């Protein structure tokens, strides 16, 4: 019985990741339109985009090899696997122990590796440019990410996401300066990893500023749909990692079905707030030059290191 319940929870969370991700993206785009005084295409436009892409024919570049055709599936598969590990509404996750947060970050790295390879595959200048820039940004983000994780794990003595979230919810609320620093660092990193302004602009096709978009220029049809979908899932998942590490209150405990509806509502509310935050940042800031990104991510690293120091000195 317990196993069936956990399996159901797992399936429910996967459904939320797969089906809810376009909604979050739609919410962000709608808000952005409101902020900028434009008419919106509606909350559901990302679903319509995906459906349209799935039904379109594919145009492959002449030089594309099997890597190019295989990469969208790997990107989607690795991102979905990451989604199976992160607690969204319940700690009851049979697959939750498959990967701790270090392995989780590495799953995203696998997806990125294949996408960067696919970008090099068509033999165009933009593909190489995107892949080179993406790997550069990632390499600067990763040490900061690890420091931030390390700081959070100092308090919970664990790198398993469910355990980290569980420890925070089950101990009385204390304001920890280390977590505040780690949170600031995590926000900066998440912005870089999900390719949002000010590091990258998901809406641009201006050739000299593209990072992520430059990598997927040659994709079309269902391949593009899978990559776009995985990108939306990544935004949802990074938001959920942030929620699980820093604001896990509201996630339902083990074998507690009655807590599920409130947990669902709380999750939706938190994600909606994150959407508002993203839009405020994206409307208020301009995209920065590529060679300003090291400073941006360097400050994320410093913040995370300060968090660690403050744990050892103050706590």
């Amino acid at each position, binding site marked *: 019985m317990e196993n069936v319940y956990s399996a159901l929870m797992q399936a429910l969370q996967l459904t939320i990741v797969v089906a809810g991700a376009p909604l979050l993206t739609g919410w962000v785009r709608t808000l952005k339109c409101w902020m900028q005084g434009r008419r919106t295409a509606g909350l559901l436009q990302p679903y319509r985009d995906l459906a349209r892409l*799935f039904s379109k*024919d594919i*145009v*492959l*570049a*002449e*030089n594309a090899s*099997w*890597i190019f055709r295989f990469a969208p*599936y790997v990107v*989607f*598969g*690795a991102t*979905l*696997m990451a989604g*199976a590990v992160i607690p969204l509404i319940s700690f009851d996750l049979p697959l939750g*122990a*498959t990967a*701790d947060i270090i*392995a989780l970050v*590495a*799953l995203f*790295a*696998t997806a990125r*590796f294949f996408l*960067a*390879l696919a970008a090099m595959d*068509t*033999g*165009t*200048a*933009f*593909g*190489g440019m995107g*892949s*080179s*820039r993406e*790997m*550069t940004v*990632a*390499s600067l983000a990763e*040490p900061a990410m690890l*420091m931030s994780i*390390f700081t959070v*794990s*100092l308090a919970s*003595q*664990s*790198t*398993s996401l469910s*355990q980290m979230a569980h420890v925070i919810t089950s101990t009385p609320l204390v304001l920890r300066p280390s977590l505040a620093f780690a949170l600031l660092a995590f926000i900066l990193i998440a912005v870089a990893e999900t390719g949002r302004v000010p590091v990258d602009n998901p809406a641009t096709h201006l050739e000299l500023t593209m990072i992520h978009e430059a990598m997927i*220029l*040659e994709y079309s*049809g*269902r391949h593009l749909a*899978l990559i776009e979908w995985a990108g939306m899932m990544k935004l949802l998942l990074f938001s959920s990692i942030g929620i699980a590490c820093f604001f896990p209150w509201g996630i339902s405990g083990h074998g507690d079905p009655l807590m599920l509806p409130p947990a669902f509502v709380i999750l939706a509310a938190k994600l909606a707030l994150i959407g508002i935050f993203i839009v405020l940042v994206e409307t208020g800031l301009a995209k920065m030059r*590529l*060679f300003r990104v090291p400073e941006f991510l360097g400050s994320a690293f410093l913040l995370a*290191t300060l968090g660690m120091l403050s744990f*050892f000195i103050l706590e």
Partner: protein
Amino acid sequence: MQSPLDLSIASVIVLLCASAAAPLLSSKQKHLVTFTFAASAFASLLAFAGGLSALYGGAAESVKLLIGLPDLPFYLRLDPLSGFFIMVVAALGFCVSIYSIGYVRSFIGRRSVTPLAVFYCLFMAGMLLVLLSDDAYSFMVSWELMALSSFLLVCFEDERPQNRKAAFIYLLIAHIGAILILLSFGLLAGNAAGFTDFSGYTFQAMRESGISGGWASAAFLLGFFGFAAKAGVVPLHAWLPEAHPAAPSNVSALMSGAMLKTAVYGMARLSFDLLPVSAWWWGGLVLTLGLISALMGVLYALMQHDLKRLLAYHSVENIGIILIGLGLAMIFTSFNMPLMAALALTAGLYHTLNHAMFKGLLFMGSGAVLHATGQRNMEGMGGLIHRMPWTAPLFLVGCLSISALPPLNGFVSEWLTFQSFLLSPVLPSRLLNILIPLGAAMLALTGVLAAACFVKVFGVVFLGRWRGRHKTEVHEVGWSMRAGMGLTAFACIALGVFPTLMIDMMNSIPGAMLGVKLDVHRGLSWIWLAPVSAERASYSAPIALLGICAAIAAAYIVAHARKTAVRRAPAWDCGFEKMTSRMQYNATSFSMPIRRIFGFLFSIKEGARASGKHPSAFFPGKYTYTLRVRDRLWYFFYKPAADVSFWLARKAGKLQHGRIQIYLLYSFVTLIALLVFA
């Protein structure tokens, strides 16, 4: 049923016989290649069986051979640690030997392959003997056998001056290292039995001597830097990117995958067995140098466009990662925390095995590329995936492994290293608590930079379009080369997906060295890796792989629910027209952002020059870009060392006049001097 030690000795004897028999066949080069490499593959199998059963059995076994000098017999010993390293060397040796059957044939007709065959077998035998020897004397003899035979392999293609130069630098550094090791053994032996007696030369006597204090630290420092010179630890690394590319690719695979591991073995033997770890700064030194090597290795690798040089720099990086594990293990041991030391040691040793497999695979793959295209410069390659349908996916497996991506093997050992890093808050020293996590961040940076580097390698060599000026006929390599690469690729996948099988078997090493065994399951079933506790952190590669595959299958079904057509068209590229293959990103342009961010660590000379009819106009006929990236250490350390040794050699050369009377005079003077002082 033979004992593990007998199997290993038999393997050495087979190798020595094969190298002795090889010159007899030198008139029939094709048969020579098949015979020698088949024999070395067979010998590797024997050694593999011996090493694996010693590791599995967990007991030590020793024997005294009646060879060597009078009163100084050779002692051999096989315990779990040496068994593990023998297994690593033999597993790679087997794959490389199979590969060599096809690879060495390509030299036939151009030059005689007899020296290659002879010294290849001697090299293998030397590595195995280093791992087996149990006294300082046989250790140094085998160490020299290994160093000299590999030196002769490096200068196999000696018509090129840069190969001769590389071989010289290699020999120089190898001997500086050997002197330091000898001095370290001298200190240990002197402490065991006094400086006038030879009986302290066995490792057993050194173990029992209980050396401590300043002498122990001196012996450790000498031995560590001696082995570090062989392992290519920064700042003693500069020979490595010169020597490994100069050797034939099968030898590079063995040197990088196996020979560097004998140095790791030496460090582990010295610091966990022969010497009692006493001060935490030993581990701190190893950890610091490991971190510097890892980061500098990968950054140098990113700057390269010669495929084999790039891979050689990655060996520096991976040796650094192995040293991180060893260093952490030493720190934990010095604070008397054997369980945590066991985890860090296992992480380091597992990375040793993994690195042997994926670096062997990558060097063999680079040999296949070299074989197919006739060049090592990546700037002139591209699109090989269309011409080499087997080599490309095998090489990709190696790239994924070395980039530490799940579910492959490189990730497992890096994950274990991270877990050991995360245990550092329990250390009772505030300074270490704060400094060690910064090391974890450096390791994370190294991992992603390695991924960036291998996106560059695979993307520039195998993907895109051909970048060279001339069309060359590229062809896939033969079956034996594919088989050698395929076996190592299989090992990479198996070690990545089922890590617990191997790690459970490796448990006898911490059992023998630290006196504790590691439980990596913590009450979960065998597919889970949970080195500290199930709540703390867990990773399950089989489930991750199955999950990814299931998600891919689901995505495939969803994406193919509606029938859509696939057609080919020229690349869109934002609507730009007339793209030529010269406009693609190449190795130099790919690493440009990283070169700009980390450029202060190198000495970089960059220049651009317009030429042609109107060089000053807006449309010059030709635009030349030059880039030179050098190791700063080269000028500080290596050039002076080489200059001094040449200077000494010239001075010593003055003694030699080629006249017999003078030599007789020298002997006479020496005799008189001995009689006076003795």
